[in-house]
């Protein structure tokens, strides 16, 4: 199944997504297609230049069973170290916060504390435990996140959440860096005779040779 390039919300087009053949149908939406999920994407002033959205949030109305795979690069970014640690002891999560602009990798203890401050703030706003919040970052390696700008944007981000296709698209745009297109897709199928949905968003264009575990 191949779709044509379509305009996504934000200022880059959506990627053509080519799915293998199977007993599913492609549907509109991405991370918000499945029941219980909301998303938001906004410009928070994190990028070095331009006004493309750069902060995204995905939340679940209930405790979602959580899995994570992470880079096996020994020099892992602060969010990778944090998420691995959290998922060693926690089986569920309620939110994923993602920033673009700075990778918060090779930023030492200060970078890790920046990330913890963001986790604490979003957890308070969402009224969930900090360990129910997971984090992803992308951007320039060696640069700490613009914490003040990020913290300032969080209330707006939380209030912008919805289960609409538009907000799923906004979130998909907000996680991009050098990407020329945003990547988002959802499918509907059946499990045990009951309709289920699987959706997702991704980003990536360069520094791409994943070896995740």
């Amino acid at each position, binding site marked *: 199944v191949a779709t044509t390039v379509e305009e996504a919300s934000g200022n880059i087009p959506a990627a053509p*997504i*080519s*799915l*293998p053949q*199977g007993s*599913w149908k492609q549907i509109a939406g991405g991370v918000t297609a*499945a*029941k219980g*999920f909301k998303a938001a994407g906004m410009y928070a002033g994190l*990028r070095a230049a331009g006004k493309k959205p750069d902060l995204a949030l*995905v939340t*679940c109305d*209930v405790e*979602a*069973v*959580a*899995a*994570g*795979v*992470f*880079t096996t*690069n020994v020099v892992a*970014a602060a969010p990778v170290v944090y*998420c691995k640690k959290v998922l060693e002891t926690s089986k*569920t999560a309620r939110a*994923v916060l*993602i920033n673009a602009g700075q*990778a918060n990798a*090779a930023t030492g203890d200060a970078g890790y504390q920046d990330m913890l401050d963001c986790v604490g703030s979003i957890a308070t706003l969402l009224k969930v435990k900090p360990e129910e919040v997971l984090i*992803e970052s*992308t951007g*320039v390696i060696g640069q700490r996140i613009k914490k003040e700008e990020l913290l300032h944007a969080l209330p707006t981000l939380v209030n912008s959440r919805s289960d609409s296709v538009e907000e799923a698209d906004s979130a998909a745009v907000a996680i991009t860096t*050098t990407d*020329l297109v945003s*990547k*988002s*897709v*959802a*499918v509907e*199928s059946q*499990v*045990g005779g*009951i*309709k*289920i*949905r*699987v*959706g*997702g*968003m*991704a*980003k*990536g*264009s*360069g*520094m*791409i*040779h*994943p070896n*995740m575990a």
Partner: protein
Amino acid sequence: TMLGVITTDALVESDIWRKMVKVAVNRSFNQITVDGDTSTNDTVIALASGLSGSPSISSLNCKEAAQLQACLDAVMQGLAKSIAWDGEGATCLIEVTVKGTETEAEAAKIARSVASSSLVKAAVYGRDPNWGRIAAAAGYAGVSFQMDKLKISLGEFSLMESGQPLPFDRDGASNYLKKTGEVHGTVTIDISVGDGAAIGKAWGCDLSYDYVKINAEYTS
């Protein structure tokens, strides 16, 4: 860096979900390459709300698990391919399919070796149907196979069979690469290395002058 967030409303137990996600990632994101650089930040988070009302999946060896795994594989492969398609400076997606190994992991390893080869990627950008580079990248993948079983096709063009190069329409094969690049389409490379039943796929992109330009000037 590649990042991903996957969501589902299927109901699945934690340890089963983690195994399913690992399998899907190995069939998708771990099988793409753009430039051979592994990021410090690569992450995929997958969340299952369980709100669909579907039966709980508590074993990998059931029909329901297979159904969910297939959907998960499809979504992750769709997203993974779009990352390779959008590779910095790329004019086309390269899909490498390897058959004939004993295990899926062996086939996947050969496929990724070919998709990762800078020489193969540069040849595709140069519209050069260079079967020798494809054969070489398959050969150094770290998977043993008999050279006289090697078979290579580029799109509809058979370039090698039983380890022997075939006469082929070089201009036609070059034109296939050119036309595919003009529409940012998909170049397919099919390889067979033996009589095994396993199949593996990998996805990459061609390597252009623009890749260097983008990364020489990158700030954010």
